[in-house]
């Protein structure tokens, strides 16, 4: 997604599992007395024990498969920062505020009814532009700063009812208001959220046009040329031509399945920045689909096991699939990383000629079937991964499959496999894409594996034990560090934790307990942590929703963490880093508006309260 700036990231931990599920799976992997005690990080023996694999079962005994991985990335929203300014919207008052993070001056303006969803737009140096969706008046207001620093509402354009998300082109000319179904609570099945509204912001008279796309849009990508938008839906990928002779139109819909009417597995779709290719994974399936978007064709690529995550490198040169390798009972001695698990013991880089042949190579009784039908083009290379079937154990190790994006469609059987003696299901690639962060949240695991990418790296890796099960991880923009949100086991003294992880240097991670949860077991009732991150700072904000509200400012490469108390509850998705002003900020719940700035060098706190009433109190 293009938001017009790149230096600030925010992550937010949302746990989608029910509590019982988590406890059950934790019990299977950790001893019951493994606890997280206090700030000094005294862990019970089991928690430190790493990725225990459990006792092997008798042949033929069925074991529960791991929970699917939770896709946390969708919850990580970038806050609305433009240059040195922060835009905030208050749906209750109908006002939008623009705060200069260097001088802490505030300007406010009225938008429509219930301004709620903001997006920053590219603007000339020294100025700022933003769009806000007015949830109640079903329109959007285009806002910009004037020469004297005031806010000007330049246009109000109608949008469809229920819009709750933005996608903007890199050049800032077009914005698409769409409805993210995942943000809606218990939507009716007849609510397809199929409307999108394309706003053309160019010229003196901006315009808007409603279009219809497939059922339940999940993601919207804009291409680098600001010409096409790609809307990922249940049906496939809708290609929106933003500059057709008839104005914005849905040019076509690209199917990603040979039988779309019956392809009901939950999908994750990634589109390359140039819009040329898309890569699709499906829950519980042992293949991925590569789509040539321009040609409207796709091919399934069989992989040696169930694909739990799929991501694209930042430069879109690589698609990286995570495959959990099923293990036969007879193979169990090889399973497990062992206590501590600091480094993987096995690192096999495959020859990469496999495809379907590799998947069908033997092993479990069902191994060949699912993979074989997807018809990879390469021949078998003798890899003997088992498929799901009787006699099979729960997976204990995973494989990273590296597919070159440029050739994946034409040569779908050619890919590189990196086998690690670790169990993981999720991958996070930083903006630099030089290191893959590998972890699991479908099965509670404390290990974070850092896999070097690129030819020079030779797929070397190291594994860190973060002591507490990992929920999500995010790299700093320069890829030198990462923040991992952790989920302490029940009974731990502190309810939340995160880790500051040196990625480029072989140093231990800093584990920090927090006084409120970082991972929400129940997203509706709990407040997950927000993470804002730059190359040298990260701000992790937590709240119990009652009286404990803290922001933890981590410094990198020092790996020090300072806790800063907040006066009120943070608003969701409302923290960020204003690099130009060297400030972090957290917007908070307050009738007249409240936002706290934290100097990234001195930790000096500056809280603005009541700026919406123009009776600004600065503390």
């Amino acid at each position, binding site marked *: 997604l293009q938001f017009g700036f790149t230096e600030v990231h925010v992550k937010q931990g949302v746990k989608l599992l029910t509590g019982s599920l988590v406890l059950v799976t934790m019990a299977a992997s950790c001893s019951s007395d493994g606890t997280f005690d206090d700030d000094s990080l005294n862990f019970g023996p089991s928690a430190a024990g790493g990725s225990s694999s459990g006792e092997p079962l008798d042949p033929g005994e069925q074991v529960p498969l791991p929970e699917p991985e939770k896709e946390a990335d969708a919850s990580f929203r970038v806050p609305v920062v433009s240059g040195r300014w922060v835009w905030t919207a208050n749906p209750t008052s109908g006002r939008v505020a623009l705060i200069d993070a260097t001088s802490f001056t505030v300007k406010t303006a009225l938008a429509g009814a219930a301004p709620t969803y903001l997006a920053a737009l590219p603007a000339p140096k020294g100025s700022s532009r933003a769009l806000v969706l007015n949830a109640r008046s079903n329109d959007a207001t285009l806002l910009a700063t004037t020469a004297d620093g005031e806010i000007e509402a330049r246009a109000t354009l109608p949008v*469809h009812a229920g819009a709750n998300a933005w996608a903007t082109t890199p050049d800032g000319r077009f914005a698409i208001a769409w409805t993210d179904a995942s943000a809606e609570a218990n939507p*009716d*099945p*007849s*609510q*397809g959220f*199929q*409307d999108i509204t394309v706003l053309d912001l160019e010229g003196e008279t901006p315009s808007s*046009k*409603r*279009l*219809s*796309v*497939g*059922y339940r849009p999940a993601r919207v990508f804009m291409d680098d040329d600001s010409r096409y938008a790609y809307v990922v*839906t*249940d*049906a*496939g990928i*809708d290609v929106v031509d933003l500059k057709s002779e008839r104005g914005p*139109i*849905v040019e*076509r*819909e690209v*199917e990603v399945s040979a*039988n*779309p*009417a*019956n392809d009901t597995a939950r999908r994750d779709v990634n589109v390359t920045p140039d819009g040329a290719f898309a890569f699709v994974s499906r829950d519980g399936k042992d293949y991925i689909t590569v789509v040539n978007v321009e040609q409207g064709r796709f091919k399934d690529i069989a992989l040696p096991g169930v694909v739990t995550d799929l991501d694209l490198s930042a430069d879109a040169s690589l698609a990286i699939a995570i495959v959990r390798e099923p293990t036969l009972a007879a193979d169990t001695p090889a399973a497990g990383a062992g206590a501590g698990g600091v480094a993987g013991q096995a690192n096999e880089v495959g020859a990469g000629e496999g495809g379907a042949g590799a998947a069908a190579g033997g092993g479990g009784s069902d191994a060949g079937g699912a993979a074989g039908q997807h018809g990879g083009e390469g021949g078998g290379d003798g890899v003997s991964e088992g498929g799901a079937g009787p006699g099979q154990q729960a997976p204990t190790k995973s494989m990273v499959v590296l597919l070159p994006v440029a050739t994946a469609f034409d040569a779908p059987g050619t890919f590189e496999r990196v086998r690690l003696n670790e169990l993981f299901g999720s991958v996070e690639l930083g903006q630099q894409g030089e290191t893959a962060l590998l972890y699991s949240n479908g099965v509670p695991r404390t290990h974070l594996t850092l896999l070097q990418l690129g030819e020079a790296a030779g797929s070397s890796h190291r594994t860190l034990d973060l002591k507490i099960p990992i929920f999500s991880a995010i790299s700093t923009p320069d890829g030198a560090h990462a923040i991992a949100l952790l989920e302490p086991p029940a009974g731990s003294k502190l309810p939340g934790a995160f880790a500051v992880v040196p990625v480029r240097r072989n140093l231990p991670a800093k584990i920090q307990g927090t006084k409120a949860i970082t991972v929400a077991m129940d997203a509706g009732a709990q407040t997950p942590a927000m993470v804002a991150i730059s190359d040298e700072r990260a701000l992790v904000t937590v709240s119990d929703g009652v009286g404990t509200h803290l922001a933890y400012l981590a410094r990198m490469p020092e790996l020090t963490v300072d806790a800063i108390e907040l006066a009120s509850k943070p608003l969701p998705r409302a923290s960020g880093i204003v690099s130009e002003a060297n400030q972090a900020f957290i917007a908070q719940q307050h009738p007249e508006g409240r936002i706290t700035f934290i100097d990234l060098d001195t930790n000096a706190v500056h809280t603005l309260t009541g700026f919406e009433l123009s009776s600004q109190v600065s503390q």
Partner: protein
Amino acid sequence: MKSPSQRALFAPSLLALACLSCGMSDSETGALPGLGNVGGSPDGMGPNAGGSVTVPGTGGASTGGAAGAGGAIVVPPEEELEESFLAPVVTGKYVFSANPKSGRVAVIDAETFAVRLFNAGFGPTYMSAIPGGRGAIVINDTSDDATLFHLAGDDVSVDEVALPVHAEANAWAISPDARFALAWTRSEPSQADDPTSGSQDVTVLDLQRMTSKRLSVGFHPTKALVDDASERAYVVNDEGVSVITLGDDPEVELLARVSEDPLEEAAARDVSILPDGSFAVVRVDGSSLLRIVDLSREDAIQSFDLGAPVTDVDLSHDGSLAVAALPGIGQIALVPVPPTGDAASFERVSIPGEITSSVALSQGAELALLYQNGADNSHLTLLDLREGMGRALRTVDVKGPVSAAFAAPGAASAILFQKPIRGSAKAGLFSGVPTLQKRSAKIVGTDAVPSALAFDDQGRYALVTVGNEASAAHGVYRVQLDTLQEDYLPLASPPATAATGIVEEVERGFVAQTHPEGRITFIDLSTARAHTITGFELAARILQ
């Protein structure tokens, strides 16, 4: 089965009433329903036909509908629902609306919203447009006569002569040349077992000579139409098809039998008649035989065994092609009419993995919409019938079970009426489906059951009315068919039965509603702005 004449029953809605506003073709006018029934009276379906929406049940399961592999498949019987979605009468830019209680007919200018009232006979109820924009005619249900309204430019006048019609007439078939109007009595299924309710009278009105003549046709008429040449009328009934010669002295020429078994259950038959009246295409529930009947003779039946029970047949608008659904063997048969060879010569199209027991053809037969409504099935299969397209198939999942399908003029899109998706709190559901492009259907949950549909004649817009007198919510969706943008406009009162239409001349749609003094809402098709007129029966000047 939907013959051209049957199609005309909902042509005013499906084809945007263009025919009504600019002169209907023969067959279309032949079976036009009664006029608007703004006053809440029933339409041409008969006094008790009432319910505007006959989509069966709600809350049904949404199932994938994939067929099992191999072997014949027994599928539940299909339901013919398209005919229930009717529209009122438009002539030129005027909407004619009859009120049986007041005995008046309102003529509303859809451009200026000016209303004029005219007295008709007693109980004016069943109305039809006269082709060529020449006016309208209404059956006065109480006085058993018909009143003719002439339209010339902006002038509307009432003919002084009220032509007698038989008692209980409730439907019209009008000749394309506007000379003849056939008043007949549509039998309801509830009458099937009543031997005293044969409804065998028909009345032929000569609108040039202003004469009327009663005739008797077969038992239980179910449909009637006039051929393209305005020379004959055809009345489908239990015994077969009664052929009436029009002209100066109308008479029943012959009864063309459609079955060799005189005891065959007539209710199990679907009879479609070609627009030129030359042949009828007949299917029988549960039978694999498709019959082609020469209507110029009494006993001229050809039977073709298609290999599996024929669950539905749709006839192209020009009558040259019949498309038969054979879900038992997963096929569609394309039958040229009249056939030029035996059954083996008919082109077959296999529909792999789907159960398609209903067929709805687009107006130009470019496209066949294939679906199932005898059981809950959320799949719609699109069969491209255009030359050079290789009979391309595409199946889309529209989430909720399909009840009825309608192709828009031009066949670029379609509207489906559906049951709600399983687990949905919505009362109704419809979809807009791009048919010639590979794009997703637009799924729209509604707070009331869709009850009526109208397309404009260019296929750019559709109106979908939801709700009826029994529902708490009522409104109308303006659907822009190229983008599938839909805009909901709530209605202040329940829509009347079969009272949604489009006035092509001024690019406005309308929904007449039940209201003691009359209420109609016009919708500008391009802007989706609504304009409601209420109480026109009281406020308007009565013109004699």
